[in-house]
């Protein structure tokens, strides 16, 4: 890049852009902003950001959260040490059994895939992979095109 050319170009572009004044906002914009502000004022305080809550409610919510967290920690500790944990343990066991079934199914599927890959050969596996990638790229491309079209300048 020629520094002299660059300098001249920068000056020329600056000169052109200096011509630009402020754009005129659409006439309906002010009304829209004022309506949004009215809605925000009319909304109950608890729907706003936590920082904008009344100070007393900030304090109350903070204490409640700390108590809740402490309570959960305490309960978990107590449950794990209590002798009568067996009933709760049964429930937990049922949940873990459910996850165990899922895990086993995933394992069987993975084994089936490995076996299929071994029998099909590398070419077909790579072909399937490429086809999947192409399908994914087509989906992303179409999605991007639709979003660009939807948000295109009117």
């Amino acid at each position, binding site marked *: 890049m020629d520094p002299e050319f660059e300098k001249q*170009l920068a000056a*020329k572009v600056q000169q052109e852009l200096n*011509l630009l004044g402020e754009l005129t*906002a659409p006439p309906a914009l*002010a009304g829209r*902003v004022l309506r949004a502000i009215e809605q925000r004022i009319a909304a109950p305080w608890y729907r706003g950001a936590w920082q904008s809550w009344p100070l007393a409610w900030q304090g109350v919510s903070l204490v409640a959260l700390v108590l809740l967290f402490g309570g959960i920690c305490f309960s978990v500790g107590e449950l794990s040490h209590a002798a009568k944990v067996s009933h709760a343990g049964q429930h937990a066991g049922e949940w873990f059994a459910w996850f165990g079934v899922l895990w086993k199914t995933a394992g069987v599927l993975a084994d089936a895939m490995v076996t299929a890959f071994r029998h099909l050969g590398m070419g077909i596996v790579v072909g399937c992979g490429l086809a999947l990638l192409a399908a994914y790229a087509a989906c992303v491309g179409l999605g991007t095109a639709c*979003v660009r079209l939807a948000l295109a*300048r009117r």
Partner: protein
Amino acid sequence: MTDAQQFETFLHNYQNLVFSTAMRLLANQSDAEDVTQEVFLRAFQRFADLQHSPTVGGWLKTVATNLSLNHLSRYRSRWTFFTDLWRGSEEDDDQPVDFPSPVDTEDMLAVADRRELVERALQSLPAAQRVPLVLYHLEGLRYEEIAEKVGISLGKVKTDIFRGRETLRRKLRLKLSEEVG
């Protein structure tokens, strides 16, 4: 005058400034209106401090710039791949078919028309060129500040600004002094 009336006056005084800042960065009227609305919602929350501040214009511009850049970055990761693919064809598409010749432009177009022309050329630039160019030439930011704000390297900022200027030069058929002679 009540607070509501004062804010309405404030809004009418500054809406063009905020809208222009957002529009030139986003090049999309609907997005620029959303950003303008958000800027004034934030201004309303701090109106007691802002209304007598001498730097209120700067504050509004900064917030509008930051919100516009946030808006752009929200979509950037999703679009980068395909935008980069399309950018090549956009850069090739520099034919200023709807622009009059420079001689005619100098002679015949009024200043308002020239502004319109420059505005359209600016908004037709790809975002990667337009954003750093606007931040540099219109918002007065330095290269380092732009790199930090946009989250790209200093070298890329310089390259994108140079490309943006080049594209504008071709679109507006600007003549530099060495080319004139």
